[in-house]
C-alpha cells in the first residue's frame, strides 16, 4: 500500500551527525511502534520516514526541502538548529504560497527559538518541543522555590538562542524572586572557546549558588567541567546536558549537580506504556537514547489529525485539526497545541543527573536523569506576538 | 680504488657529463683540471650520488652508481663541495662534529678534532664562534677538515684554493700532502695549474663533459696543444 511520507531533514554527516541519527532512530521507532504496528492510518497507510542530510547548513536544508516537495511529500520533521528552523519556516511559507498544490507542513520537534512561535511564526509550523521561554519559566520556578539561593550565574553561547535564555532568565527571576542577584552574565562565542577554565573561575569567584546555561555539545561539557573542577558545588541548570556522550563524560563528577529541564522524562517511567516503549527502543538501538520524547507525541498527534481529516494530502485541514488538539502523552500528562501560535503546551520536568533510581540510564553508563519536579502545563497562557496568515479553511 | 667508466650525468635535460673515465689508486693525488663549466664539479657530484649518474662507478670493486649520498659517504668517500656550505647558525666546532659519521666518536679515525686544530690554529681560536662569520679562507679550511673528520679513504676536493691568499694556498698544499701521507687518496679539482702540477701524481684534463687528457704533470707540461685548447683563457 502507499505510505505517508515524512521527510526528516537533519545533519546526517558532519559534527552533528549523531544528533541527526539519534533523532532519525526516534522518529522511525515512533512511526513503527505507534502507528504502523497498529495498522497505520486511513485503513492501512503506514508512516515512512525519509531521511535527508542537511549537513547543518541552511542552504542544504532548503535543497533537501525542495527535493522532498518534488517527491510529493507533505510533512517534514526538523529540529536541530533554530537558524535552520527559521530558514525552513520562511521557505515553507513561501512555497505554500507560491505552489498551493504542493504544500508541506513543518513538524518542529526541537528548534527552540521563541521567535518561531512569536514574530516569525507561521501557520505551517508546529512545535512539540518546549521552547526557551517555557523551559526557563520552569527553571526559574525551580530556583525560586529554593529560598537559600541568592546568587545566580548565567553563562551562554553568544547567539540568538543563548541570548533568548538570558532574556527569559532575567525576566523570570525578576518576577519570581526580585531578591536574587544575577552575579554573572557571560556570553561566549559558540564552539570557539578551547579552555573554559576562566569561566569556571568566574563562577566560583562570583559566589554563585546556581548556574543557568543553555550550552550544548562540547560547550556544555566545557562549562560544567570547568565549574566543577574550579570548586563550584551548586546546581547547574541546563537545557540539553543529557546523552550524546555528555552524561557519560560527567559521570560521578556531575552527580546531583547537573539539572536537565525538559518535557518528557525516562526516569522514573511515567507508566507501563512508557516503560515498554523506552525499553523497546533501548533494545533496538543500544547505542542511542531517547532524548526527544516529544517525537512520540508528534507522531501520535499527526496520525490522529490525518485520521480525523480522512486525508493526508489536505495539509490545510490537517493543520487546522492539529490546532487546539489535546492529547494524552505517553510520558504522562497532556499535550495541548496552542491555536494562536502552534506551540505545544505540556508538563516540564526538572531532572537531575544521578545514578540512583535510574531505570533507563543514558550513554550506556550507570548514569541517567531522573525527574525530581514537575511543572504542569508550563506557560499555558504566556503572551505571544504571533500573527499568522491563515489560509482559507477548506 | 675508484674506477669510473663511461659516466653520464644530466641536469634536467642538459647533458653535462658525456662519458667520463677516471681511475684513482690508493694513496694517490689526482688532479682534475679544465675550464669553468666543463663539468668537473658535476663529476664529483655524480660520484657522490648528489645526482644520479649513468654508467659505472666502482669503489673498491663495489658498484656505487645509483646509491644514495649517505651510503656512499659511509663507504669511505668524502666530498668537499666547491661553495663551502657552512651550516647556518652552527659554530666551528659543531660544523666539525657534523663531519663525524653516525655513531663515530671523535678520535677514532685517522683525524681527530685536535689534529685539525693543530694544523689550523685559526680554527681553534674560532672554535666556538658561529662559523658563517669566518673569513673565506677559514671557511675553506673548515669544510675540508669537516670532511676529513668522517675518516674517508678517498676525498674529492672541489677548488680548495679559490679565494685564498698565497700563504693559505701553501697551507692547503701541505694539508693535501699530509692527507696523502696518511694513506688517503685525493681527487683534486683545481683551476690554479701551478699547485695542481706541483703536488698531483697524475692529472686529468676535462673538456665538454669528457676527459681529454690523462697523464703525469710532467707530460702535461710537454703538451702545449692541450694546454692551449683546454686550459687557457
Amino acid at each position: 500500500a502507499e505510505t505517508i511520507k515524512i521527510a526528516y531533514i537533519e545533519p546526517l554527516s558532519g559534527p552533528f551527525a549523531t544528533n541527526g541519527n539519534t533523532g532519525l532512530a526516534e522518529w522511525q521507532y515512533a512511526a513503527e511502534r505507534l502507528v504502523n504496528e497498529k495498522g497505520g492510518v486511513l485503513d492501512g497507510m503506514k508512516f515512512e520516514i525519509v531521511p535527508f542530510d542537511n549537513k547543518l547548513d541552511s542552504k542544504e536544508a532548503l535543497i533537501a526541502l525542495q527535493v522532498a516537495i518534488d517527491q510529493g511529500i507533505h510533512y517534514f520533521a526538523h529540529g536541530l538548529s533554530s537558524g535552520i528552523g527559521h530558514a525552513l519556516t520562511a521557505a515553507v511559507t513561501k512555497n505554500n504560497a507560491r505552489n498551493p498544490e504542493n504544500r508541506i507542513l513543518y513538524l518542529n520537534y526541537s528548534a527552540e527559538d521563541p521567535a518561531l512561535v512569536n514574530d516569525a511564526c507561521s501557520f505551517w509550523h508546529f512545535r512539540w518541543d518546549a521552547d526557551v521561554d517555557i523551559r526557563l519559566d520552569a527553571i526559574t520556578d525551580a530556583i525560586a522555590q529554593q529560598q537559600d539561593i541568592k546568587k545566580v550565574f548565567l553563562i551562554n553561547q553568544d547567539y540568538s538562542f543563548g541570548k533568548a535564555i538570558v532574556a527569559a532568565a532575567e525576566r523570570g527571576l525578576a518576577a519570581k524572586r526580585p531578591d536574587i542577584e544575577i552575579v554573572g552574565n557571560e556570553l561566549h562565542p559558540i564552539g570557539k572557546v578551547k579552555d573554559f577554565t576562566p569561566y569556571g573561575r568566574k563562577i566560583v569567584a562570583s559566589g554563585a549558588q546556581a548556574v543557568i546555561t543553555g550550552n550544548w555539545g562540547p560547550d556544555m561539557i566545557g562549562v560544567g567541567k570547568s565549574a566543577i573542577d574550579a570548586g563550584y558545588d551548586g546546581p547547574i541548570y541546563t537545557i540539553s546536558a543529557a546523552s550524546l556522550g555528555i552524561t557519560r563524560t560527567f559521570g560521578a563528577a556531575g552527580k546531583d549537580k547537573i539539572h536537565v529541564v525538559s518535557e518528557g522524562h525516562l526516569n522514573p517511567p511515567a507508566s507501563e506504556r512508557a516503560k515498554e516503549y523506552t525499553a523497546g527502543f533501548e533494545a533496538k538501538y543500544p547505542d542511542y537514547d531517547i532524548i526527544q520524547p516529544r517525537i512520540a507525541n508528534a507522531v501520535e498527534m499527526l496520525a490522529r489529525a490525518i485520521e480525523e481529516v480522512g486525508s493526508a494530502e489536505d495539509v490545510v485541514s490537517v493543520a487546522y485539526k492539529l490546532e487546539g488538539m489535546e492529547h494524552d502523552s505517553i510520558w504522562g500528562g497532556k499535550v495541548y497545541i496552542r491555536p494562536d501560535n502552534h506551540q505545544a503546551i505540556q508538563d516540564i520536568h526538572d531532572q537531575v543527573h544521578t545514578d540512583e533510581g535510574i531505570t533507563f540510564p543514558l550513554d550506556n553508563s550507570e548514569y541517567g536523569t531522573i525527574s525530581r519536579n514537575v511543572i504542569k502545563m508550563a506557560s499555558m497562557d504566556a503572551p505571544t506576538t504571533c500573527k499568522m496568515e491563515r489560509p482559507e479553511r477548506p | 680504488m675508484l674506477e669510473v667508466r663511461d659516466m653520464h650525468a644530466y641536469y634536467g635535460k642538459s647533458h653535462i657529463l658525456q662519458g667520463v673515465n677516471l681511475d684513482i689508486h690508493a694513496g694517490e693525488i689526482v688532479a682534475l683540471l679544465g675550464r669553468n663549466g666543463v663539468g668537473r664539479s658535476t663529476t664529483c657530484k655524480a660520484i657522490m650520488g648528489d645526482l644520479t649518474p649513468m654508467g659505472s662507478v666502482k669503489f673498491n670493486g663495489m658498484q656505487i652508481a645509483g646509491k644514495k649520498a649517505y651510503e656512499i659517504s659511509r663507504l669511505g668517500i668524502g666530498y668537499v663541495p666547491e661553495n663551502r656550505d657552512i651550516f647556518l647558525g652552527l659554530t666551528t666546532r659543531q660544523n666539525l662534529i657534523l663531519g663525524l659519521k653516525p655513531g663515530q666518536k671523535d678520535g677514532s679515525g685517522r683525524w681527530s678534532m685536535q689534529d685539525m686544530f693543530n694544523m689550523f690554529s685559526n680554527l681553534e681560536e674560532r672554535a666556538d664562534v658561529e662559523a658563517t662569520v669566518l673569513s673565506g679562507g677559514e671557511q675553506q679550511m673548515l669544510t675540508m677538515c669537516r670532511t676529513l673528520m668522517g675518516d674517508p679513504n678517498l676525498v674529492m676536493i672541489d677548488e680548495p684554493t679559490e679565494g685564498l691568499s698565497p700563504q693559505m694556498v701553501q697551507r692547503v698544499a701541505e694539508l693535501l700532502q699530509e692527507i696523502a701521507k696518511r694513506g688517503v687518496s685525493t681527487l683534486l679539482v683545481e683551476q690554479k695549474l701551478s699547485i695542481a702540477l706541483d703536488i698531483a701524481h697524475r692529472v686529468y684534463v676535462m673538456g665538454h663533459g669528457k676527459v681529454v687528457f690523462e697523464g703525469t704533470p710532467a707530460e702535461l707540461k710537454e703538451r702545449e696543444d692541450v694546454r692551449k685548447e683546454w686550459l687557457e683563457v
Partner: protein
Amino acid sequence: MDLVAINLIDGLFYGLLLFMLSAGLTLIFSMMGILNFAHASFYMLGAYFAYQISLYLGFWAGLLIAPPLVGVLGALIERYGLRRVHQFGHVPELVFTFGLAWLIEEVVKFIWGNNMMAYQEPEILKFALFHIGSNSIQAYKVFMIFTSMAIFIGLLFILTRTRIGLIIQAALSYPKTVEALGHNVPLIFMGVFGVGTALAGVAGVLAGPSLGTFPGMAVVLGSIVFVTIVIGGLGSLWGALIASLLIGWMTTAAASSSFQFATLLEFFGMTPPADLDESYLRDLWTLSLPQIGPILPYIFMILILVLRPYGLFGKRDA
C-alpha cells in the same frame, strides 16, 4: 588579587598546551618547510588512541603508548604521502595536509562516532592540589604544566645539544651536503615528522581529558596553532613558546575580564543611542571583551604580519 594569580596559572596551562602543539609544528616546519595543516589532527588522534588504550590499560599506559603510535603513523604518512607530494611543490603539499586533516577527522568519526568520549584524568591526579581563594587548582593541570616544560627543555636539548639537533639544523641550510657527510637525511626527515606528530599526540593525550575528546577538537585548535607559530616566527622554538604563552594569557585574560566596550565608547565622550535596539551601532554598545576573546589572537596575528612579516622571532619568510 587572587583572581590575577589564578588567571596567570590558567593562562600558563593553556599557553603551554598550545606550545606542545606548536612545538611539533615548528619542528616540522623548521626542518622540512612544511606547514602541516593536519597537525591538530594528530593531536586528536593522540587523544583518541590514549582513550582507547586507557579503557584497557589505564591512563598512564595511554600516555606512554599513544604518542609513539601517533608518531609512527605520522612517519608513515611522511614516507608514503608527503614525500611523494613534496616533489610537486609547496602548495600541493599544503593542500595535501589540508585534505589529510579532513580525512583523519572522517576516519575518527567512522571509528569512534561523533560523541564526546568519556576520557578522564587519572584518579590519582584528580584532586585539588592547592587553593587560591575559593578557587582550586587541579593537580592534573600542574602535571600538564610540568610535562610541557619538560618537553620544551627536551626539545631544546635535542635541537642544540645532540648531533641529531645539529643535523636537523644543518639540513635546513644544505641538506645535500649533510647527506654527503654520511647522514641519512630522508630518514631523519621521516623521523622528524614522526617526532613532531608524536608531540602533537602527547598534547592530545594530556588535553583530551580536560578540553574534551570529540571529532571537532582538531578544528577547534587547528587554526590557532598556526596563528601561534606565525606570530612567534616560523621555525623558531623560542618564538613558539613566547607566542603560545602570550596567546594563553591573552585569551584567559579576555575570558575572565568583564570589560564592556560601552565603557570605552563613553570614555571617548559618546553617549549610548536613545533607542538602542533600533540603532545600527547596537552591537558595538553591547559588546564585551569575553565575547571577542577567542578572535583576539587573529587580530594580533594580522597586526604582526602587517608590521613584521617574519613574526616576532622569525628569521625568514616561508
